[in-house]
């Protein structure tokens, strides 16, 4: 057998049956008590579960009509009387809730974002969502520097961090509920989009990535969230300027930084082989396992090839992605790095094949799902983002996804077809915009 064929035969595939079993189990049975630390992220986990089954094409088969309605009902039970969603029943004060204590069961941006995603995924029309109130809340969630917090606490104080994760979710919620429109809509004021763009710009780092805050370290997650937010706000860089501030002041550097996230450091052993040896040769450097071997590439390996098969260098078979300089590859960063590249229309500057192989051969788990590192147990976040990346790469058998919203294109079309949204955006008179 030709070596090329052997390689193909050895290659791991996406184990659909196992992934579907993994996600159905997450949907229909209790998560073990070790998830207690995620008790306030249940809406997030739920969105991953529902969206993953949709990406796998299993959602219609996995749910009875009664279950579908029951889940929609559960999400609406998390809607707050004043608008917005709590991220879990844990903070629900039930009959004891009153104007004085409601700050302990507040509007929550992640709860709201993921609740909307679930409703859209389950085919709800969002008619029962307090949409005006949510849009009002978003303006309260924005700080004077343009960034967003997680929740609004006592005396209207914006609580939580001030990084692009919250800006991403706020921008996504705004897009879902009012599309690209800027300025007041239907009597509801808009967030300060220009201020947010400036907030993203000052978090650009000297090496081309984006960070949590000015002069903090560049990080894949914050880079992705910031770029997705700019995408929802229609403020990504453009060739023609239109006078509006646009994010990313140095695109070539950002692309350089994103491309630099590809790594051959795939497990702790790869990273450990040079610790406490900081002498001055290429042989002892980080990534030396790749650099020195690649030094001989392709000359010696080339001799081994025959039948015109290009040699697959062992180190090139798997390429991981990391979230920061000199860190180990991690499944979720395949999404946090590929998503901005795709939104910036530059996904072609990476080779998806070895990244796909890394996910399938190294971090895909026997029982379905993906772990963070090779050998790790699967968890919903890494399992979901692994699937997202494979779908973005065009994996056969997976539904197409919307990169920034993290739902299938089909689900996004459902949202865009809703009559109230079409009316708000003035699409009914003019047809498709």
């Amino acid at each position, binding site marked *: 057998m030709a070596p090329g064929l052997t390689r193909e035969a050895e290659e791991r595939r996406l184990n659909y049956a196992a992934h579907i079993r993994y996600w159905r189990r997450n949907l229909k049975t209790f*998560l073990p008590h070790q998830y207690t630390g995620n008790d306030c992220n249940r809406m997030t986990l739920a969105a991953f579960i529902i969206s993953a089954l949709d990406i796998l094409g299993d959602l219609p088969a996995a749910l009875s009509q009664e279950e579908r309605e*029951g889940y929609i009902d559960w*999400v609406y039970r998390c809607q707050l009387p004043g608008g917005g969603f709590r991220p879990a029943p844990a903070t629900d004060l*039930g009959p004891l809730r009153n104007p004085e204590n409601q700050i302990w069961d507040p509007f929550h941006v992640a709860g709201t974002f993921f609740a909307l995603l679930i409703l859209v995924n389950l085919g709800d029309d969002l008619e029962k969502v307090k949409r005006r109130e949510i849009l009002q809340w978003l303006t309260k969630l924005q700080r004077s520097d343009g960034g967003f917090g997680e929740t609004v606490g006592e005396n209207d104080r914006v609580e939580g961090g001030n990084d692009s994760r919250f800006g991403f979710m706020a921008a996504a919620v705004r897009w879902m509920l009012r599309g690209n429109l800027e300025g007041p809509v239907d009597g509801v004021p808009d967030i300060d989009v220009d201020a947010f763009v400036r907030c993203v710009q000052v978090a650009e780092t000297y090496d081309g990535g984006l960070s949590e805050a000015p*002069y903090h370290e560049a990080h894949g997650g914050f880079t992705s969230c910031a770029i997705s937010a700019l995408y929802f706000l229609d403020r990504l860089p453009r060739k023609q300027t239109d006078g509006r501030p646009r994010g990313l002041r140095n695109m070539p550097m950002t692309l350089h930084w994103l491309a630099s996230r590809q790594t051959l450091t795939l497990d702790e052993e790869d990273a450990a082989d040079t610790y406490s040896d900081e002498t*001055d040769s290429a042989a002892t450097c980080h990534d030396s396992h790749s650099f020195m071997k690649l030094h001989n590439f392709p000359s010696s390996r080339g001799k081994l090839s025959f039948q015109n098969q290009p040699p697959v260098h062992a180190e090139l078979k798997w390429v991981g992605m990391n979230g920061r300089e000199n860190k180990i590859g991690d499944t979720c960063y395949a999404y946090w790095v590929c998503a901005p590249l795709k939104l910036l229309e530059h996904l072609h*500057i990476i080779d998806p094949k070895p990244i796909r192989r890394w996910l399938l051969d190294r971090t895909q788990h026997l029982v379905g799902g993906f772990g963070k590192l090779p050998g790790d147990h699967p968890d919903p976040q890494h399992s979901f983002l692994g699937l997202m990346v494979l779908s973005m790469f065009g994996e056969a058998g997976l539904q197409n996804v919307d990169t920034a919203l993290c739902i299938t294109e089909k689900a996004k079309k459902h949202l865009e077809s809703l009559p109230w949204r079409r009316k708000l955006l003035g699409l009914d008179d003019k047809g498709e915009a």
Partner: protein
Amino acid sequence: MMTALFTLLSAVFSLPYRLLLAVAVSVRSRVQAPKMPANEDAKYYRDDPAWGDVEPLPQDDGGLHPLASIAYTDEYSEAMGYLRAVMADSEHSERVLELTEHIISMNPAHYTVWLYRAKTLREIKADLGREIEWLNPTALQHLKNYQIWHHRQTIIDALGSPDGEADFIATMLEQDSKNYHVWSYRQWLVQRFSLFDKEDELTWTESMIEDDVRNNSAWNHRWFLVVGGHSGHLESEHVVKRELEYAKYAIRKAPQNQSPWNYLKGAVRAAGLPSSSLKDFALEFADMRRPDDIYSSHALDLLADIYAEEEGNKEEAKKALELLATRFDPIRAHYWNYRKGLLEVPETAA
């Protein structure tokens, strides 16, 4: 371990997960006793006379079809019921501090429990020094938790002094020298207490880079002190020289380490110098006339940029990018080829 085992069992034998859960829980109490708080250590409020006046508010999980349900321990469910009752009643007291501590030990990512605790500390005018003493081991138990750091900022801000914080940070970084929360917190400290130009801060940062020259968080902290503390500029010729020499010294130690290369290029830009000022230095590691002696893909990358800007040297730039794509950094071959493609495009007025 146990979770994995029984996820696997469930998958392989298609056993009902709930059944396995029940088995696992009974097994776990024996097998995992050292890791899990043993049952006799569990705290229950219903048996505690000090809580006799409080009617717990049980969780309404939301109907027949809740999503992402968690098999809570009885201990957690009960404590949360008391927390909701206390929050509903806006009680702030010493016992509430104990209750929030108990909840945090089981769910440190509960976002309002931290806010409620902070408010309680203010209301009862608690000793904030004691709060920090409690926070130290708690942070060590939950290295990746975000809320702990936000809370710590609130407390240290109120205390008005960074005393002792450097030692605590050192302990945290011993566990994980690149922990993002810890470095972000350090930056907050520097800003809050104006430590940018304090000699100790730069010396400490240097020692972190000495410990691990590839610690990008430490490099970034240096940038934060030297450039961020001075409105994005390198403040004098002396500082420019010092920073360029420092980055070069680190590159000579480990030429294939991208952190100091990024730092060096950033410093040259911040000083308003042309990238061509780094040409001779880059050639030390990547002389294209001797491709077998190339020691750094980052030097080649920099040379490609420098050649591209030089009059009539695009061919050299292409050669550098080809060497990167085919020999020295093939995992980024698509990117290097893309850069090569850009050299063909006629310059547009930027």
